């Protein structure tokens, strides 16, 4: 795969050509129905998204907001009620696209009676990989996720973190271009979380596209280029994470060398007191604050897109 375009930096969204759109959803809607066809839950409402090649895209939202539904729709595990989900320009229910994607489910749903090697061997055989390369990849991935010492132990003896790591190895067995990670850091200790984040960033350096969903805000903030915030099945916020976390209508000033008396006046006239202006920009909020404010606003005004401003897309 070509990594020349994207290795150096975060892609400049505005200049991307349409062929670099890896995931596209148009008016994607999912309604869960019961056996009789009666509507139970409207899990996803008219979602429009685009994920471009080489970026790390985060889906953020509280439990039940439609994150996992979106991922399942993109994988063809669910069929849309209306609208379309396209992966690599093909319909999400097309099996052929699976050659180029890797998926780490919410929990690692693996066969507990297999050991690490057998697990990876089984999944590798589902792809068209020559036998020699298959062995190489299995060995490399096992050492990548640091499971060398437990490669012959059955997965039922694995701890949660170990299961998570073998699950990730399984998702990467086909050297995918697009990786979908559902709650990648749940159940991992702080060190494991750090390693997982490093790995995700390394994947971007290799030119891969990552879509991850999580309700763990620090994870999203640390790794994602762009995020979409979902709440109750609706898209509330979408944009580059650095833009979103910038508070536009406020100004932040950091000054040095002012006397205590001058500090009192500075609120009225900064410039006239001749203090050295160290920094003057818009303050950033934490993702946690942004997230909570969006959720609060969404609950107060259901159906409206959060914040009036249009972020650059």
């Amino acid at each position, binding site marked *: 795969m070509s990594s020349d375009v994207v290795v150096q930096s975060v892609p400049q969204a505005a200049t991307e050509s349409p062929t670099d759109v890896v995931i596209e959803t148009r008016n994607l809607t999912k309604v*869960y129905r019961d056996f009789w*066809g009666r509507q139970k839950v409207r899990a996803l409402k008219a979602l429009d998204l685009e994920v471009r090649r080489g970026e790390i895209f985060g889906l953020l939202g509280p439990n039940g907001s439609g994150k996992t539904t979106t991922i*399942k729709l993109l*994988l*063809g*595990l*669910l*069929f849309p009620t209306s609208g379309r989900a396209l992966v690599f320009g093909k319909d999400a229910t*097309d*099996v*052929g696209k*699976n*050659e180029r*994607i890797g*998926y780490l*489910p919410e*929990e690692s*749903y*693996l*066969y507990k*009676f*297999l050991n690490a090697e*057998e697990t990876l061997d*089984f*999944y590798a*055989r*589902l*792809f*068209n990989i020559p036998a020699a390369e298959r062995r190489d990849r299995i060995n490399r991935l096992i050492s990548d996720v640091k499971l060398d010492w437990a490669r012959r132990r059955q997965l039922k003896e694995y701890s949660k973190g170990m299961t998570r790591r073998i*699950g990730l190895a*399984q998702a990467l067995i*086909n050297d995918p271009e697009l990786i979908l990670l559902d709650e990648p850091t749940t159940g991992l200790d702080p060190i494991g979380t750090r390693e997982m984040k490093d790995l995700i960033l390394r994947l971007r350096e290799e030119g891969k596209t990552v879509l991850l969903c999580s309700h763990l805000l620090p994870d999203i903030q640390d790794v994602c280029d762009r995020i979409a915030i979902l709440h109750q099945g609706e898209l509330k916020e979408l944009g580059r994470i650095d833009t979103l976390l910038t508070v536009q209508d406020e100004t932040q000033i950091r000054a040095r060398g002012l006397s205590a008396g001058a500090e009192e006046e500075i609120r009225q006239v900064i410039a006239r007191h001749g203090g050295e202006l160290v920094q003057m920009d818009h303050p950033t909020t934490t993702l946690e604050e942004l997230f909570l404010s969006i959720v609060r606003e969404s609950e107060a005004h259901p159906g409206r897109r959060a914040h009036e401003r249009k972020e650059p897309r």
Partner: protein
Amino acid sequence: MEIRPDEFLSFTQWLGPALLFFLIAVPLLTFVAVFACFVFSAARRGPVEAFYAVAGTIATAIGEDLVATSLRRIMAIARLTVKESIRRRVIVGFVIFVLIFLFAGWFLDVKSDDPAHLYLSFVLTTTGYLVIVLGLFLASASIPADIKSKTIYTIVTKPVRAGELVVGRILGFVAVITVLLALMGAISYLFVVRGLDHEHAVLPDSVTPLPPRVEGEASPGWEGTTTMNAHHRHTWTIDTEGSGRTNRLMGHEHVVTRREAGTGADQSTYELGPPIGALVARVPIYGQLRFLDRAGNPASKGVSVGKEWEYRSYIEGRTLASAIWTFQGLSERDYPTGLPLALTLSVFRTYKGDIVTRVQGIVIVRSTDPRNPVECEPIPFESEEFTTQQITVPLKLRPVGQEGIGGGEIDLFRDLVRDGEVEIIVRCDDRSQYFGMAQADLFIEAPQASFVWNFAKAYVTIWLQMVIVVCLSVMFSTFLSTPVAMLATVSAVLLGFFGTFVRDLRTGDAYGGGPVEAFIRLVNQENVMSPLEFGTGEIGVQIVKFIDGALLLVMHSFSAVLPDFSGLGRASEYVAYNFNFYDQLLARQCLTTLVYVTAIAIVGYFLLRTRELAA
């Protein structure tokens, strides 16, 4: 043993009509299935979208999934299935099998007249049921378990086609159970052979010279009895040449040999060999049966003597009424000592008759040459009821009505058998007594086939049944939970098993009526023969009959396209009765099973593909 008329058909005779049925049934069922999918889809999304959905699904199935199907992925899933089965302790089923066999000896009737039949039917039924239950439990659990534990998410998000998943699963289970079945077959074989094996010794005091045939001649040999072993005791004779046999008892006999120990014959010791004749594969050659009525005119069947079971029809004694079997493919090479006939007759008496002698009959062999219908002098026999009697037609016969010419003999194969074809005529020779017969009641015993291969054929048909059960279970489990899938499979098997019964209920050949009528009869404790009474008048009965008619139509339609499980169980009966199971019939069953397996796998593919796995 009763043989069904369709079992006489050769593979080529059967293929034509079967192919016709296939060519009608498959497009019809496909159309019904596609239409049903369309209606189902249209109810949710409207007709236009439904049309595109159905057409798109079929197009993808053929255009993409079929083309992209990979043996490597199928084998990967099959291997996984094998591992899963082993780790889910499939061995438990095998342990049950061994336990049953360890204690079977306690329950098998050791004094049975036909222990070979008892042993064979026991091992074949046990393995048959056990293997089918094993297949049912294993195969209907796999896909629902994957969906429940969501492991299927990690599989279907790889480039795995639904068809590969279905076929891989089927192959895996079939592989596991095939190995178990092979082991069970080997153990069963040893169990039967060892169970029937026994030894006798000669009681030394019992040995006496045979009385001479003609007064004054030397004794033709010796006779004696054996020790009591395995609950029976033989008598035996041996000639002066030293070749001898015991009598046939409990389905077997022994060879008697003489060991010269001293100078005189009375110094000799006698030894008995192992039991022979208990485990054989008799090869019956059946003929085409037609009847002549009492005036000698052709008739489609004989007369009915009022028996409910219409399997046999009857001919009247001392009239021209005859049962004529036409045999084909006979050659002198196969029968160097004459034609061994096996005859099973039912006798119907209109009066008690002579209480000492049985009802008499005659066998006539006649050439089928229309210009020169030579026939031999009647060979008389006494009918033995309820058993199969052996009559050997000798090679040299006397012609009838031509005593003057040449005065002599005619040769069975030179003068009577023409192009391998000959007629055997059976008549009853006692006035106002009747013989009853069906096509399978007279056959020529061709040289025996290998018992081991025959035994193996019974296991092949058990294997075929298991394969169908596994396929059905996997297919149903693609859209049903494990218990429901098991129930659906069992229902399909039962409906397939009782397909002929359902058909007979519809045509009125079987009594008792449909489900509603049967239920009413059960509650009211009525027998099946009396007219149904329900409600106050005729109208209640009419309603019941109407509902039953509809239900039976549905059941019959289903059973017509379901695998004929009772037919697949037939090989076990053949083997248990020591008959060779026709290779042609086995070939028919293999081909039919292959068609079913393919069809079920295709249905399973569509069901799994159109299923929302994460819902």
